[in-house]
């Protein structure tokens, strides 16, 4: 029994009388502790998959099972790191994490324990120094780190990252990728990450799930990345496994499933 099972999931949206089938027959099994990336061209519905796992969207067909139990609606056991951080601007960095901690651990941890846990998670992403700043006072990369801390602080069974580094510059992005890898190796989280960055997918993932183009998108290929951990980006430059994996994803995205808008 897989830890997380996406079972024959399909979803259609109805707008102005017309029905658009976005996803058809998506099947995916993820083991505990696995880091799985979902990659595809923009508009293919990869974020929709994530939202279905998060419970923010109900699938039209099929369902999602987490530890054998059906997912019905969103919950802190499937914490999401949103693309644009979505920190609440009227709360400080600490209060943003605290909101989650207090909600999830009320009754289970004492007030002091909850405070320590908040602090611990901010330290994990190296943001404890800015705990009293408001989101508009810190950089985009820092905001995303706080977003990750907030998600980690919920102690989720599965962490859902929705293009978490998409809005960041290349250097900040690399730095954050390293931090996420480090956290993954320390805590052994199960992670699904949506991305459109091939290097990011190969560097971070145990498996790369490639999606075909919509409408009615589905999983085109599911590839294992046989790279030892810990991975260091500099050492991987000439690594043949890394390069082969990279080439396979590029081949899928640009030769076999070109973006329909770019094909013309």
């Amino acid at each position: 029994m897989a830890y997380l099972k996406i079972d024959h999931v399909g979803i259609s949206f109805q707008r102005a009388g017309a029905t658009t089938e976005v996803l058809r027959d998506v099947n995916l099994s993820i083991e505990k502790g696995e880091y799985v990336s979902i990659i595809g061209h923009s508009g293919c519905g990869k974020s929709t998959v994530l939202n279905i796992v998060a419970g923010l969207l109900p699938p039209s067909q099929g369902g999602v099972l987490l530890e054998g139990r059906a997912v019905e609606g969103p919950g802190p056991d499937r914490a999401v790191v949103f693309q644009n951080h979505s920190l609440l601007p009227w709360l400080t960095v600490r209060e943003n994490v605290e909101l989650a901690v207090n909600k999830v651990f009320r009754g289970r941890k004492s007030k002091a324990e909850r405070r320590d846990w908040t602090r611990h998670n901010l330290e994990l992403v190296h943001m404890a120094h800015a705990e009293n700043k408001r989101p508009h006072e810190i950089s985009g990369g820092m905001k995303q780190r706080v977003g990750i801390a907030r998600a980690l602080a919920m102690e989720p069974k599965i962490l859902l990252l929705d293009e978490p580094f998409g809005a960041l510059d290349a250097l900040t992005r690399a730095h954050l990728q390293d931090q996420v890898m480090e956290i993954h190796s320390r805590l052994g989280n199960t992670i699904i990450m949506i991305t459109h960055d091939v290097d990011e997918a190969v560097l971070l993932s145990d498996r790369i799930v490639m999606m075909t183009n919509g409408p009615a998108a589905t999983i085109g290929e599911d590839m294992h990345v046989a790279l030892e951990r810990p991975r260091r980006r500099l050492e991987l430059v000439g690594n043949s496994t890394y390069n082969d994996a990279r080439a396979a994803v590029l081949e899928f995205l640009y030769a076999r499933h070109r973006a329909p808008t770019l094909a013309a």
Partner: protein
Amino acid sequence: MVHSARVLALPNPKIPAPTRQTALHPLVPKPVSVLSRVVRLGTSVATQVAPPVLTIALLLLLWQMLASSPTSALPSPLKVIDDSWEIIVDPFKVGNGIDQGLFWHVSASLIRVGYGYILAAIVGIGFGVLLGQSTLAMRGLDPVFQVLRTIPPLAWLPLSLAAFRDGQPSAIFVIFITSVWPILINTSVGIRNIPQDYRNVAKVLRLSPIEFFTRIMVPATVPHMFTGLRIGIGLSWLAIVAAEMLIGGVGIGFFIWDAWNSSLISDIIVALVYVGVVGFLLDRSIAAIGHLLTRGTAAQ
């Protein structure tokens, strides 16, 4: 001879220059820092205060010139001061009936505005939340509100007089109905504009409806709410003067109407200055409260 004189003349100005510099340098920091601070203060006062003062002075001068002719229908500023000296110097006068100082007229108006406005804020925010959260309520109520809000405030007065049979509640009702629409509409727009991301965060955290209201909806909506509250207070103050002209009694509106009936044009002008200044202060105080409550949330 002429040539050599020229050649000599050239280096001459250069020689004193370095000595002047070396002589001044040690002196420069101390006196200039104090002096520059005074100068900076002076220039900031001059650039901030001088333009409005100058503008007002020029306008008064223009008014004085235009109204100085003996055939002028309106009094000049000097004549206003001369005519209305009594009410200018004694705003706290207590007399019989409506013969009160301007302070009492203004405060009577402010009390009416206060009742109507607070009522409007409660109802406006309440319905605003309902319309913002419920699409069904929006569909049902929005057309009604869109029609009602275009009705001019004073058009409500006869109806409210018929309903309440008394001036005081009628005036309060007019204030209420005038200021409720911007508060209601801005609140509902604010709630509709809560980013989907914040709603998703609330869903993932499984916030209860009450937690969602206090932790997300209120802070996200406060800036919009205060835009509505600020427009509302401005409209209330506009409406109260007109409403009081019709209902009579103590109040700045009826004071103006009474002065017109008694041909005391100078008193009207003094009253208008009061109305303007009080309206300005009302607007600023609501803006200040809003600023205080939204600190840190405006920037995103």
